[in-house]
């Protein structure tokens, strides 16, 4: 008898690989292949291959969108790996959001990265791996999968934040982001270990059923709070937002846009999975907790944004406040699960379009002004009228003025918290309304500077907008307008979500 056959007998039945649904995994496989291809082309072609990189990354992201569309057309839900990985309408919509945001980020990066003295192959490689983590996150319905997706999206992002190696501010941005991010994931993991200890499983579905049955217990409370705190860092909710302004300011601006949009949405996607598929039964705990987080984020984010003079820092604090608006429907998560989930998803999609657009205009204007100070954009209307109009669209959309997309996002949130019919919901509606007014002031202030103020240095040469950047602005502006004028488009998609399980988790028995 050979050694191998003895080993085979000792180890029991032969190993059989699981059947894998490759169609369901096709978006991830395409992204992974393109990321690896970029590294290969970069290491073989060296300098000659540099101009190919953005095109390759952009085409790869659009290529990954094709299987997402075919899966959506086919329409049936696919459950993989024993329930750890689910491809349904909700996750497909979120995957499409991530891939399109990634495409816009590549457009924003094209000239910025090529004109600075940066490493292009590695940049796009890390960007694609980070997006791969986000696409996995959209389908993850298991604590281990959520953790791996979170780290896959975070670790490349730490490196991207510190991308300007010789610049002390970029180093500082990377270090602060890394320490806060790693600390947050450690806290989150401690919470997950307690949740596992109570329920004995890492799958969210059985966790949800057990949580709905057992009621409150101190271990569950601690575990759930720790997990939610861990993701509050990722979405930069107050009081866990301190890294965001410094990191956005120090990182290259396209990376700041990436962190403010894609990374923040990924944090919300994880919160959606955890709360709506797992923790919903603990409504006495999660509703007050998220109520506090949402309220603090809105007030603190808006009030600090009022006195910012740097546009990136202002967008960072406005992002904190926007996170508060997105957290608001979670405060009625268990009272009205279906409407609140749809409101969060609607807000996420529209937020991606309008915030990416705002960053795109800032990148375009900073090519001329070489500064992030809001005052340096004074009189932009006189030399860059199209950019000024586009920026006004994005700013007023962020403020929630009809008929722009942000209006529908705020309306969905408002409708969801009122619809729940709880006292907390009504109070939250008032808070959302008050904060929308505060936010309008600082968004309008930037628009006023760009339209009315004199040009600070009198230099009236027009801004040279490269085609990729122009296309990014047109695309995001068109989407922002489209969602505002035809809100039914997004409504139809969210109405198709299969959310039958929510009633079971929120109202057991």
């Amino acid at each position, binding site marked *: 008898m050979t050694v191998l056959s003895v080993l085979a007998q000792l180890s029991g039945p032969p190993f059989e690989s699981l059947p894998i649904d490759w169609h369901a995994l096709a978006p991830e496989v395409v992204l992974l292949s393109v990321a690896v291809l970029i590294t290969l082309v970069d290491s073989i072609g060296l300098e000659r291959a540099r101009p190919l990189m953005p095109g390759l990354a952009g085409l790869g992201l659009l290529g990954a969108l094709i299987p997402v569309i075919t899966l959506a057309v086919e329409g049936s839900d696919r459950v993989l790996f024993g329930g750890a990985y689910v491809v349904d309408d909700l996750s497909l919509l979120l995957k499409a959001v991530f891939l399109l945001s990634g495409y816009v980020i590549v457009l924003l990066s094209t000239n910025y990265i090529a004109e600075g003295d940066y490493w292009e192959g590695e940049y796009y490689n890390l960007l694609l791996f980070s997006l791969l983590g986000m696409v996995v996150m959209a389908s993850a319905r298991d604590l281990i999968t959520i953790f791996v997706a979170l780290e896959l999206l975070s670790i490349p992002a730490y*490196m991207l934040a510190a991308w300007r190696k010789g610049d002390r501010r970029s180093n500082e941005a990377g270090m602060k982001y890394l320490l806060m991010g790693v600390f947050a994931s450690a806290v989150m993991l401690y919470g997950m270990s307690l949740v596992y200890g109570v329920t004995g499983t890492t799958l969210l579905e059985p966790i949800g059923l057990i949580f709905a049955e057992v009621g409150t217990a101190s271990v569950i409370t601690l575990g759930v709070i720790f997990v939610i705190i861990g993701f509050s860092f990722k979405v930069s909710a107050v009081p866990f937002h301190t890294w965001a302004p410094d990191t956005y300011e120090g990182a290259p601006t396209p990376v700041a846009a990436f962190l403010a949009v894609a990374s923040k949405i990924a944090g919300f996607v994880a919160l959606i999975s955890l709360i709506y598929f797992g923790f919903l039964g603990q409504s006495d705990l999660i509703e007050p907790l998220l109520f506090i987080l949402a309220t603090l984020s809105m007030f603190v984010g808006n009030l600090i944004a009022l006195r910012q003079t740097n546009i990136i820092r202002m967008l960072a604090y406005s992002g904190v406040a926007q996170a508060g608006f997105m957290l608001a429907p979670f405060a009625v998560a268990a009272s009205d699960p279906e409407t609140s989930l749809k409101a969060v998803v609607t807000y996420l999609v529209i937020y991606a379009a309008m915030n990416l657009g705002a960053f795109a205009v800032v990148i375009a204007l900073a090519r001329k002004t070489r500064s992030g100070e809001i005052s340096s954009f004074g009189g932009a209307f006189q030399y860059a009228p199209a950019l000024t109009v586009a920026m006004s669209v994005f700013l007023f959309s962020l403020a929630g003025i009809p008929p722009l997309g942000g209006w529908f996002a705020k309306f969905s949130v408002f409708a969801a918290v009122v619809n729940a019919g709880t006292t907390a919901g009504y109070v939250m509606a008032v808070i959302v309304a008050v904060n929308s007014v505060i936010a309008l002031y600082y968004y309008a202030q930037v628009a006023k500077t760009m339209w009315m103020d004199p040009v600070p240095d009198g230099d009236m040469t027009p801004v040279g907008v490269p085609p990729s950047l122009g296309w990014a602005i047109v695309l995001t502006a068109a989407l922002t307008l489209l969602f505002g004028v035809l809100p039914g488009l997004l409504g139809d998609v969210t109405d198709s979500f299969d959310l039958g399980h929510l009633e079971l988790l929120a109202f057991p028995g």
Partner: protein
Amino acid sequence: MLLNQFLILSAVLFCIGVYGVLARRNAVLVLMSIEMLLNAVNINLVAFSTRWGVSGQVFALFIIAVAAAEVGVGLAIVLLIYRNRTSIDLDELDEMKG
């Protein structure tokens, strides 16, 4: 039961780690404190898996692998900071405020 003692050990390790992250100013020591947090989690998971079966141990293996990647990136950034500033004191990272 034996499980309690492991959980207490893990809680103590976690608290020491949190103290280290908050109080230490040296970037390498902060990274070490974060490792301690992650190991507290691993002890928790392995202790619970004596009761529930193998998935806790699988989780712990994933955490060990990912923690190595995190600290690898963390030390690389610490090295960058040292090259640009010849200091890894976190209190001196204050160029951006507001």
